[in-house]
């Protein structure tokens, strides 16, 4: 504590003459009135803008302006996306069984022997069918990643399956020309989007092609060292730490490629279509 600071601080310009008190108070009243009216108007404009926003027609469950911003956020994260960025992996001992959360599209039984994955070629539109053995013939990839539910919980899971990118390199169905879809050097005629549906078409998700071709995006047939159970999507499900769990479609029925964003079950109910990580 120093001495010089013990004196009250001086006014702005110590030499300037002081204003008469009546003028000062009049000025205070004038400026106060102006400022409070200004703040009040700004508040009214804010409330008006809010009313306008929430009265806009809904676009898949949320007011259209909000949907537009979510889509812009999606484009921004697409621009930032790099396929070499990987989700962290964890020790296998940390793996747990995730909650089953959600059984839409899983009615009835599926016999893995007769099950087929139908894939519509982007260029040809022709449908090709694959057995589980076809998928298992591709290099088996194992990863221990964190499954993140859009509800806010997460769980480490040990997954095994074939990379979707390996599948599309082996079976070049994602390009018009029939060239393999190399994720590091994507051909110009690569489909921009992938859609997946359950066999009964009750559940469906859409993915951008970059996420679909990411090395951690798997056509998954094993969870924590065991074949998938029916509730977790047997015989084959999608797993990708690039997206929230809502995109991890269980029991794949059909895969199709598209020029526009494929329909997405949860995006229709107000969620972000991209839902990307």
């Amino acid at each position, binding site marked *: 504590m120093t001495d010089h600071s013990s004196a009250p*601080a*001086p006014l702005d310009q110590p030499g300037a003459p*002081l*204003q008469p*008190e009546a003028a000062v108070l009049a000025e205070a009243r004038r400026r106060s009135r102006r400022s409070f009216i200004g*703040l009040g108007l700004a508040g009214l404009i804010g409330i008006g803008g809010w009313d306008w926003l929430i009265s806009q027609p809904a676009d898949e469950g949320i007011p259209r302006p909000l949907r537009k911003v979510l889509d812009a956020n999606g484009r921004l994260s697409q621009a930032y996306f790099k396929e070499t960025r990987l989700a962290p992996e964890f020790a296998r001992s940390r793996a747990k069984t995730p909650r089953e959360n959600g059984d839409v599209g899983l009615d009835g039984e599926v016999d893995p022997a007769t099950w087929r994955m139908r894939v519509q070629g982007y260029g040809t539109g022709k449908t090709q069918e694959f057995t589980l053995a076809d998928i298992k013939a591709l290099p088996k990839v194992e990863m221990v990643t964190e499954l993140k539910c*859009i509800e*806010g919980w997460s769980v480490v899971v040990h997954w095994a399956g074939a990379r979707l990118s390996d599948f599309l390199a082996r079976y070049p169905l994602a390009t018009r020309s029939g060239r393999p879809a190399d994720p590091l050097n994507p051909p110009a005629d690569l489909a921009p989007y992938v859609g997946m549906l359950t066999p009964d078409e009750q559940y469906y998700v859409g993915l951008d092609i970059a996420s679909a071709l990411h090395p951690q995006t798997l056509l998954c047939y094993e969870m924590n060292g065991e074949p998938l159970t029916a509730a977790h999507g047997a015989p084959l499900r999608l797993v990708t730490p690039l997206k929230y769990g809502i995109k991890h479609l269980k029991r794949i029925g059909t895969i199709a490629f598209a020029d526009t964003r494929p329909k997405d079950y949860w995006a229709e109910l107000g969620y972000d279509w991209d839902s990307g990580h």
Partner: protein
Amino acid sequence: MKQLVEKHPLAIRWFHWVNFPVLALMIWSGMWIYWANDVYRLGWGKTTLVKFFPQSFYEAFHIDHKLAQGMSWHFVLMWVFFLNGLLYVFYTLLSGEWRYLLPTRHSFKEALLVTLHDLGLYKKPLPVRKFNGAQQIAYTSVIIMGMGSVLTGLAIYKPTQFAWLTQLLGGYEFARIIHFALTIGYVLFFIVHIAQVVRAGWNNFRAMVAGFEVVEVDSTTHQVVAGPTSLPAADATLSSN
């Protein structure tokens, strides 16, 4: 003799009043999101002191089953919150206002005295200047908290693209805990802030709207003899008399 003294620049008043509703809506939409996985509590073992949040709280404010709406609002307003905060920080740096706001080596001791004074345990007068040590610490902390909210938010919004950040913040689950704890921090800040504003009175409140304060000045020496003043040496220490 009463005189007007400029206190808060127009830009800072705008940043303040834009932030208030935006942060309120971020907290509100955040609660809609949090409801979908409301696992936090204060307690130990099987003892819970405070559950975040009791069912009655959700019901009273209709917070349940709004995850999708909550996320959409949160990911729209995050831009306003972030840009407003960023502009504020730039403004304080460029205008020199940071000199009044950043704590100095005296601020911590002064903050203690201010706290004791406000609790009625310290009777001597407090320093007469724009922001005392307690305010400097509070207003700087809340900016650091804002940065923390942006970074932990980013870590749980894009945990793969920003995996390095998520790891740095202790992982996905821990980043979510920090994000939540910071929000509780804003609420506590708000409560103390409102109490202090009420206590400080109209002159002080009006300054955040109109920019000026009315002070009592000695007509011969031009020294401020009563009332708060904006004018202070930013590094002035606590008055010793």
